[in-house]
């Protein structure tokens, strides 16, 4: 009995034996291509992030990050920022991707970023997850004090490949911290400070805020220290507290500098009003986790110990 096996067509052979091999090679190539020029970083919240080295199209999801990236000399690589990114002025010209609490994911994706930079406490978690889910790496920083800001600057510099700039920035911060510490140790007294963030209602900053740290580091006593991050006060509370120095964040409640001070001058029995120690300061120097916080520290020392 003769059996004739059907002639094996090359295509069929290719399908049976060749395709898996080719697929494997292709897969390896894509993986390699993906790895080439990409690096794995671990961000400040402990997530592993694959980032092309160095990233060329950055979207910053927080005004503070925009500031840091520009300070690191990588401003030209920023392709999108959130609202209120006003520092440096060049950043304000860039395309906006919504506010930091409500970023517009569609706008972000349309800018084709190869890296998004986020802050843990500011950007909503579900938005960050959504961006990551769309294949865009998100590197998150989470600075909680001046030391950690220096750390964040160094980490971002590693990602952006600009360590030299970062070292200079960190050095400057350290110089300001040291000089503040020097003046505080010479001071005989510690002024009782009320830091007003908002005017109506009266809001101050409790412990675990940048403001509390700066006040303490500058040699003052934060009257609002306590577990509540942003406690509200009535004027009755203020009269009991008897602040010796009042710091008022600019633009608090949308009032002008004179209006803000006038509200305090209604209470001449307060030591701060009696001694005319009411100061309106630029809020950006105190609530943005950027190297400029060191300028805020310097400013406070000058106010506390003139």
């Amino acid at each position: 009995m003769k059996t004739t096996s059907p002639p094996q067509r090359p295509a069929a052979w290719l399908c049976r034996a060749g395709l898996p091999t080719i697929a494997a090679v292709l897969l390896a190539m894509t993986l390699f291509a993906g790895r080439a020029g990409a690096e794995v970083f671990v961000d400040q919240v402990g997530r592993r992030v694959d980032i092309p080295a160095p990233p060329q199209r950055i979207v910053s999801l927080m005004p503070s990050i925009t500031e840091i990236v520009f300070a690191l000399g990588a401003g030209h690589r920023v392709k999108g920022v959130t609202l209120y990114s006003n520092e440096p002025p060049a950043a304000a010209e860039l395309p906006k991707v919504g506010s930091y609490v409500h970023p517009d994911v569609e706008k972000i994706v349309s800018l084709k970023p190869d890296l998004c930079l986020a802050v843990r406490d500011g950007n909503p978690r579900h938005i960050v997850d959504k961006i990551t889910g769309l294949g865009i790496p998100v590197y998150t920083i989470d600075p909680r004090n001046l030391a950690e800001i220096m750390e964040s600057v160094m980490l971002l510099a590693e990602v952006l490949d600009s360590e030299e700039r970062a070292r200079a920035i960190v050095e400057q911060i350290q110089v300001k911290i040291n000089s503040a510490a020097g003046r505080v140790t010479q001071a005989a007294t510690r002024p009782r400070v009320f830091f007003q963030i908002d005017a109506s209602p009266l809001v101050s900053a409790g412990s675990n805020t940048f403001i509390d740290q700066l006040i303490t580091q500058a040699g003052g006593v934060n009257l609002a220290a306590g577990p509540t991050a942003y406690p509200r006060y009535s004027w009755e509370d203020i009269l009991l507290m008897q602040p010796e120095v009042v710091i008022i964040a600019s633009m608090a409640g949308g009032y002008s500098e004179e209006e803000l001070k006038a509200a305090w001058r209604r209470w001449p029995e307060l030591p701060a009003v009696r001694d005319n120690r009411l100061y309106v300061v630029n809020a950006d120097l105190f609530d943005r986790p950027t190297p400029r916080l060191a300028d805020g520290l310097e400013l406070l020392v000058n106010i506390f110990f003139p």
Partner: protein
Amino acid sequence: MDQTFTRIGPRLTVICLLLGLLLAAALLLGAGLGSSGRNPLAVLDVLRHLMQSDTTQHTIIWKIRLPRVLLAAMAGATLSLGGLVFQVLLRNPLAEPYILGISGGAAVGAIAAMLLGISFFPGVTGSAFAGSMATLAIVMLLASGPQAGRKDSLLLAGVMMNAFAGAVIMFLISMSQSSQLHHILFWLMGDLSMAEAARLPLFALILPCHVVIFILARPMNVLLTGREAAASLGVNVRKISLILLITATLMVSLVVCLSGLVGFVGLVIPHILRLTIGPDHRVLVPASLLGGASYLVFCDLLARTLSTSGELPVGIITAMIGAPLFIVLLWRSRP
């Protein structure tokens, strides 16, 4: 009584077809327009090249706009149907989940769960359902007292519960120091930006509710004729009402979790439809679903594209369009 049992086949087909076309147009526009560009035809392009998935436009339409448009459609359909059901049950044209405090109760539950940081499903959704069921129970209890005969007692009780729920929400918000606060405030005004593919499975719980209500459309017609008349026609009024109440409450509380507090859809859409196509619920139920879906998709489109400095809460748009529309209709339907 005649119209309750007449054949509705052709009418139903025509109306569903028209509203279906409207919804299709809304979906197409919703997926085609957005903050990053306005090209409705790109959607067709993306649909044609379903498998090539690497372009940015593909990602935007497929993974960002489409889940959102679907969510808006589902939320709109459910809220509109919820309004219709409550209007029948209370025989009051002002009834609506939002006004009755059902949405408010769900929001109290959902916000409490969010502030505690519980997972979305089943945490936030379960808590929202519990909240709205509790509100419903209290409203029913208040309305079944000695004054139960009065037609408005249920509505009044609902309005009060809604005010109370509003107060509890504001209390929770002012007590909280949560970093989610801003997000929650936005959500309170109706916010579809949480839309993502991961939320779509919740539809599996909502769709059966729609089906149940559609099946009960004929008894709904009978209910409208009054309890005694309905009972004499062999309808178990208590049982049907209870099923409708619980089903409507469940689906509304789920939608509140997905979209926040969106008002007016349940008031405006059933009214417009009732005024234009008549009071037969066998047509009104599917028409409310399609109409509500189209309405919210259009409103969400406006919310996303009107402002260049970030999107608006969609609840603002539904109320700003819905209220004047409602007034015009009332004016024109004067005897």
